[in-house]
Every structure is written in structure tokens, then in C-alpha cells.
């Protein structure tokens, strides 16, 4: 007892010396690492907006490209590329989103914990890490060699890229739907497909749509899968199912490799257009999440 009363009270003051210094250094380093990321992001966005805004006009958005060596930036346009991006990304979305949502329904509603569902879930996560250029080579060997270049081939390649992303995001959303909803509808005598389609999917629809939009935003910016599937053309090709096509990312890639200032300027304009499309998709995804998501983490 005597020992206890003689003991000093616990020292609650802030630690001093090296312990305090090292703690402060660590905190500062964490803040610095965020700033280090902010700088290039700000730099890229600033450059693209500054250089792109001076090029973009109605004529730029609706005209066709001109030969790269023609200097003035404000002639020529990106309409073929914009049209191609909308066509190909749209078709890829139509292909990949329903398949991905159904795949996720299998994983969460039917597969449960069996080995096949575990394997599919694991491999779909692995597939998100497959480089996008491999998807281009794959569609080139399986489709383009037999049927030629087309927007459809590009959509297949982008679809392969989107599929695992859609599966993952949809799966996460389905998992959040409370089981009591499913049990309630089973108790009313509904079949499993009916429960899934009329109760589970509507409950998760906000998250599914927002995940799909993020996948579309990712696909819209991809160049590598399109290089060997659609080529690059200078005339708008409204037929997505046949004939070579072009897209904004491919056009930027061509212009970035070009030594001509005029082509580079048009590249900045196209980059601003592309970033605007991607950001709009991302913002819409956030709004959808905020407005429609019923169950969140």
C-alpha cells in the first residue's frame, strides 16, 4: 500500500523530445504525401483546360479532322472521334452491363459459398488486373482477323474490360440488400427469379447504376484496347457494326505522337472533351449514389 501512495501520478503531458518530434514528422509527411498528389493533378487539369479551351468551339466539336501538318488549331474538328467514342462506349455498355449484373446475381443470389461462385468471384477480381492492351490483342485475334476492323470489335474489347468491374460493383451492392426483404417475398410465395428481379435488384439499383457509370467512365478513356480493333479514320462512321472507326482517346494518341503544333493543339482540345465526358459520368454516378442508394456501407 505504501508503495502505491508514494508513486508519482501518471504523466499525461504530451511526450517530449524525439518521440514528439518523430510523431510530428510522421504527420507532416502524411500531409505532404497528399500535397504531392495534388500538384500533378492540378498541373494536368490546368494545362488541359488552359490549352484545350482555346481550341474548343462549335466548329471543333462538329467538324472533321484535317491533315496534321496544317497549322491553325482552330480549323478541323473532332466530330468523327466524338461520334466514335459515343457509339463504341455505348455499345460496350449495352453488352457488358446486363451480363455483368447477371453474373453478380449468380455470385450473390445463387452461388453463395459454393466453390464455383468463389472461383468466378476470384477470377473476376483477377480479370480487373488484366492489362487493357491484352483485351485489344484478344479481340484482334478472335474477331478482327476474321471479320475486320469495326466499332463492334472495339465495343467487345471495352466490354471485356468493363465486365469484371460491373460484376464487382454490383456484387457489393447486392450484398448490402438485407435478407429480410428476400425472406419477406419468399414468404409470399414468390419464386427466386421473381424475388431477385422485383425485390433485390430495385433495392440495389442506385448503387448498380453508379458502379456501371464509373465503369463506363473508365472504358471511355481507354485507348489501348481500341488501337487494333477500330483503327483511326478521319471521316465520321455512323455504322458501329462495320468499317474502321475512331475515338477520342485514339485521336489524342495520334495527335500526341505528332510533331506538328496544329495537331498537338487539336490533341489538347480532344483531351479536354474526353476529360469533360469522364468527369460528367463520374459526377452523375455520385449524384445517383446520393439520390437513389438505399443501403450504403
Amino acid at each position, binding site marked *: 500500500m505504501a508503495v502505491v501512495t508514494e508513486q508519482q501520478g501518471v504523466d499525461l503531458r504530451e511526450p517530449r523530445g524525439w518521440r514528439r518530434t518523430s510523431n510530428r514528422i510522421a504527420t507532416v509527411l502524411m500531409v505532404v504525401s497528399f500535397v504531392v498528389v495534388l500538384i500533378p493533378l492540378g498541373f494536368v487539369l490546368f494545362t488541359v483546360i488552359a490549352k484545350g479551351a482555346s481550341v474548343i468551339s462549335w466548329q471543333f466539336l462538329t467538324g472533321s479532322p484535317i491533315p496534321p501538318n496544317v497549322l491553325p488549331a482552330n480549323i478541323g474538328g473532332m466530330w468523327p472521334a466524338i461520334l466514335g467514342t459515343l457509339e463504341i462506349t455505348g455499345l460496350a455498355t449495352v453488352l457488358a452491363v446486363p451480363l455483368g449484373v447477371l453474373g453478380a446475381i449468380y455470385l450473390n443470389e445463387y452461388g453463395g459459398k459454393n466453390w464455383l461462385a468463389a472461383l468466378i468471384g476470384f477470377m473476376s477480381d*483477377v480479370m480487373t488486373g488484366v492489362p487493357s492492351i491484352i483485351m485489344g490483342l484478344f479481340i484482334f485475334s478472335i474477331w478482327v482477323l476474321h471479320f475486320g476492323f469495326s466499332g463492334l470489335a472495339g465495343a467487345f474489347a471495352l466490354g471485356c474490360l468493363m465486365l469484371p468491374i460491373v460484376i464487382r460493383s454490383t456484387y457489393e451492392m447486392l450484398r448490402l440488400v438485407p435478407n429480410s426483404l428476400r425472406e419477406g417475398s419468399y414468404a409470399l410465395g414468390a*419464386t427466386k427469379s421473381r424475388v431477385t428481379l422485383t425485390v433485390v435488384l430495385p433495392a440495389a439499383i442506385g448503387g448498380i447504376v453508379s458502379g456501371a457509370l464509373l465503369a463506363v467512365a473508365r472504358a471511355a*478513356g481507354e485507348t489501348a484496347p481500341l488501337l487494333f480493333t477500330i483503327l483511326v479514320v478521319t471521316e465520321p462512321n455512323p455504322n458501329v457494326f462495320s468499317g474502321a472507326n475512331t475515338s477520342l482517346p485514339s485521336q489524342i494518341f495520334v495527335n500526341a505522337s505528332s510533331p506538328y503544333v496544329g495537331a498537338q493543339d487539336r490533341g489538347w482540345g480532344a483531351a479536354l472533351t474526353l476529360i469533360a465526358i469522364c468527369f460528367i459520368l463520374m459526377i452523375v454516378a455520385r449524384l445517383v449514389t446520393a439520390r437513389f442508394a438505399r443501403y450504403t456501407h
Partner: protein
Amino acid sequence: MSAVTEVGPAGTAGPTASPLTERRPLGDRGFQILALSCGLLVLVILVLIAVTTSQQASLWFTTEGWKIFTYNWNPAANQFGALAFIFGTAVTAVIALVLAVPVSIGIALLLTEVVPYRWSRPIVYVIDLLAVVPSVVWGLWGILVFAPWLNHIYADIGSAVNGIPVLGSLFGPPTSGASFFTAGIILAFMITPIVTSLSREVIATVPAIDKEGAYALGATRLEMIRGAVWPHSQGGVVGAILLGLGRAMGETIAAALVIGSSPVITSHLFSPGYNMPAVIANQFGEASGVFRSALMGIGVLLFVFTIIINVIARGIVERNARRKRGA
């Protein structure tokens, strides 16, 4: 009506009122099969990728044999050794990791341990924004703005370290704006979001009681991170880093624009190089015969490398998540 009256009030169901043993309607079974086939599509696509690209690459594998792992790449002279590209892929991916990993873990710790919730949301948005910038825009900015700017810095560093034993051979001349190092920096920007978000998910699962225990013992925040957060999230963070490595190896367009397009093996990080995805992107268009087959084969090698890394990484992440759920 008769069926209803047969069932007793206590639910002693006769055979007619036993929906649980009834055969399920055709549409219901059809839907299950449809969902299953969509799930299987993932496995089918992965197998098809392996099979079709290997078929296209078989010409390269058979004509060159083990020479595919040699150093000479000269399509005009029918020499197709891929070693320089494998080297370049390794070098740029390592540079990207060395730059991106400390920054990503720093941001992940900042988000989970330092800033309050209402501040962490905007920071996450900014990191997401970084992920939305398309690869080709990084490349455009890299080659037209960033590389010319780095060119001067590289030249200054190069002349400063010229002649010093190790530094001289790593950072000495010849220097160029489009180089291994520039590609590594751009790749670092591109993999930071994924490494950050995965590490953050892992670090967020550290039980609050562990952290509070460390604080109660009088630990500073750094000591708490070292003693409570790190042992718990080590495995998951390693998984996140490996996934970042897979991304860095496969990222194509940005690297193709800024790497300098020169198939050499050199210790000089500031000199132009090449890597696997970049050579496919730049040369596939004009290739045919063995040349095309060789590029396809480089794709197959890249596919195999990234699949192995991703399987290991996902395995680590999954095992970690399972252990956490069990605990």
C-alpha cells in the same frame, strides 16, 4: 376450393399444398441458368484470351525458341528477342512502386488515422479524380509538358553526378526527357489511387480497441501506427502494393508516349527505354508475319506475368480479409 379445405388449420399440409417440394417453374430455372452462364463468361473469356493469343504467338515461340529471351530486337533483320522490353517493364514498374507506395500509404494513414470524417470525403474525391484522368491524357501531358520540363532537370542532375561510381551510372548522361524515369513517374501517378484506396480499406479494418489500447499505454500516433495498425494491416497492404505493380506493368498508352521508344538494356534511368505494352502499342499496326507474332507473344508474356501477380495479390488480400472476419 377443395384443395384449401383439405389443409388443416395447424398447417398439416397434404401433398397438394407443399410448394417447397414442387418442381420450380421453367422461367425460374431458366433465369438461374442465364445468371450462371454470365458468371461462367468470366472464366470463358480468360481461357479464350490465353488460347487465342497463344495461338497467334506460336509462330514466334517456334521460330525463335529460347531466343525470345535474348536482347536483340531488330524487326528489319528478323531478330525478335524480348529481353529489353521485359527489363524496361521491370524498371519502370519498380520506379513507379518506389515513388507511389510511400505516398499512397501516407495518404491512406492520413485518411484513416489523422483527419476527421468530414475532411476525408473531399480527399477521397480528389484521389478518385486522379483515377478518372484517362491514360492517354497523362501521356499527352507527359510528352508535351512534363518531359521537356524534366529534360533540363535530368541534364543538370546528369552533369552533377557524372563520374561518381554508382550515381553516375544510374543518373548520369546520356539524359532525355522521354525516359524510363519519366515513364515511372507517370505510372506512379496512375497507380497511386488504387494502392491508396486498397490500403485504406485494409487499414480501416484495424479494430478500434487495438488503437485505443496503444493510446492508453501512452503511445504517440506514430507509435500507435507502428504497434497497432501496421502488424494488423501488413498483409493487406502488401496485396495492395502487388495490385499496383500489376497495374504499372500493364499500363500502356502513357508509357508508350513518354518512355522514349528505344529497346536497350542500360543502367541509365534518365535515358530512353522501352517496355512490353509500349512496344505492342507502337509497332503492332505495321507488323505482320513473325513480327506480329512476336508482339502477340510479348502480350502473352505480359498476360502471364500480370495474372500471376494478380492471383498472388488477390490471394493475400482475400486471406487477410477472411482472417479478419474470423477474428
